[in-house]
Structures are given as structure tokens and as C-alpha cells.
């Protein structure tokens, strides 16, 4: 068992915890934060491979920077949409946003 597989296992644990949070939590802000946790697990994989992978290079760290940037954009737009939804519906529960199903 190399140390790379330890990092990959940790990332898998974090990803699964984040996935469970996305699937079960009802507060939309917590759902957004769980998505951030899943993105962080992927970032950890990229950085671990950039040091211990088959072709180690800095490309993994640069990809991580791009992922973090996209995650920041996603969080900003997500919170903005949530605030607008809260103004019109007065709730942040994800299972009450069901206009498309009705």
C-alpha cells in the first residue's frame, strides 16, 4: 500500500460523504457546501497524482487552480439563485422547489 493509495482512499471517503449530503440534506445551502466538498475531494486526487502519479508534473496543480476558480463561480451563482428563490418562495428547502414537476 503506497501513500498514493492512502490519499486516493481519503478522497473517496470525502467524495462519498459529500454525495450523501447532497442526496439527503434539505437545506439548499448545505447541498451547495456538500458539492464543494465533492469538488475538494477531486482536487485532492489531482494534487496527489501531480506528486506521486505515473507522469508527475505541475499540470495537476494547475488543473486544481482551474477547478477552484470554477467552484468559486459556481458558489457565487448558486447563492445568488438561492437568495432570489428565497425572496419569491420564502423557503430554502430543496424539495419544495418543484414547479417543474407540477
Amino acid at each position: 500500500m503506497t501513500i498514493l493509495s492512502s490519499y486516493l482512499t481519503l478522497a473517496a471517503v470525502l467524495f462519498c460523504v459529500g454525495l450523501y449530503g447532497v442526496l439527503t440534506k434539505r437545506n439548499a445551502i448545505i447541498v451547495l457546501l456538500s458539492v464543494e466538498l465533492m469538488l475538494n475531494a477531486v482536487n485532492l486526487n489531482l494534487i496527489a497524482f501531480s506528486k506521486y502519479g505515473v507522469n508527475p508534473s505541475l499540470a495537476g496543480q494547475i488543473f486544481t487552480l482551474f477547478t477552484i476558480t470554477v467552484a468559486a463561480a459556481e458558489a457565487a451563482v448558486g447563492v445568488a439563485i438561492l437568495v432570489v428563490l428565497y425572496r419569491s418562495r420564502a423557503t430554502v428547502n430543496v424539495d419544495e422547489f418543484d414547479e417543474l414537476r407540477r
Partner: protein
Amino acid sequence: MFNFNIEFTGEFVAFFLLAVCAIVGAVLAINFTKVVHMALSLAFTFISLAGLYVLLGAEFVAFVQVLLYVGAITILMIFGIMMTKHDGEGQEPARPLLETLAAIGCLCLFGILFYGIRSAEFPAEAASLPADNTLEIGKLLFTQYAIPFELVSVLLTVAFIGAVALAKREEDPQ
């Protein structure tokens, strides 16, 4: 397949401590009932992950992680929590079927990932990355990755303008 012969070097001890911190933060975030506690516990996880990045020799990414995740995204989420009311927290109706199904699905996914990680062959020794990797990242960003870098800056600008335009309170027509 399951040989846990790990030599207890300093790096492994540091990895183990930071990994425990990260997992504890994530699991606590799932188990807390108050939304603010969940956000702060996830901030703890993000800080532990920044420590792991330092351990992996990615100091610049670690600083970006602390600045952006802990400093920006968590604070943004806390502002989101403040701007939305959440009276009914703590007394959510239990949905045992959904939670059980989600837990089973996540455990299955983890099992598959764990099996894949265990059965893969990885090179044993670490590579020697350049010592001052911030300089190297800067050089790469402005030569090889210049176009993606500019595209990402356009994306950020568009996303933040969109966020401001979305969240701006509309004038009442009458």
C-alpha cells in the same frame, strides 16, 4: 491485496492526522443540526485539506485553498444562511427510506472506488517537483496554459456579474 505494511514515517503520521481532521469535519458537518455549525465544520475540513496540499508540496494551491474556500466560499455561504430564514431546522421530518437508500448507494460507490484503488498499480517513489513551484506555476500559466487562464478569468467575470444581476432587488413596477 490488503497488505497494510506502512512504514511510520513523519509524512505518514502528518497525513494520518490531517486525514482524520478532514474526515471528522466532513462527518460532523453531515450530523450537525444547525446550519451554521455545518458550514463551520466544513471550513475545518477545507483547512485540513490545505494542510494536506502543503504535505504534497503544493504550497501555492494550499494558500489559494485557504483564501478561496475558507475565506470566500464559506463566508459567502454564511452570508447566504444569514439572508435566508431557517426556522424549521432540527425538526425536519425523518425520511428513513431516502436516507437508507442514499447511504447504501454511497457505501456501494465507496466500495467500488476502494476496490479499484487497491487493485491498481502505482509507482512507488515520489517524483521531485521543482522546489519553488509558485514560480513554475506562474511560468506555465502564462505560456502553456495562457488561453485556459484567460478563459477562466472571463468565466469568473461573467459569473460574478450574473450573480450581482440575479441578486439585485427588482424595482417594483407600480
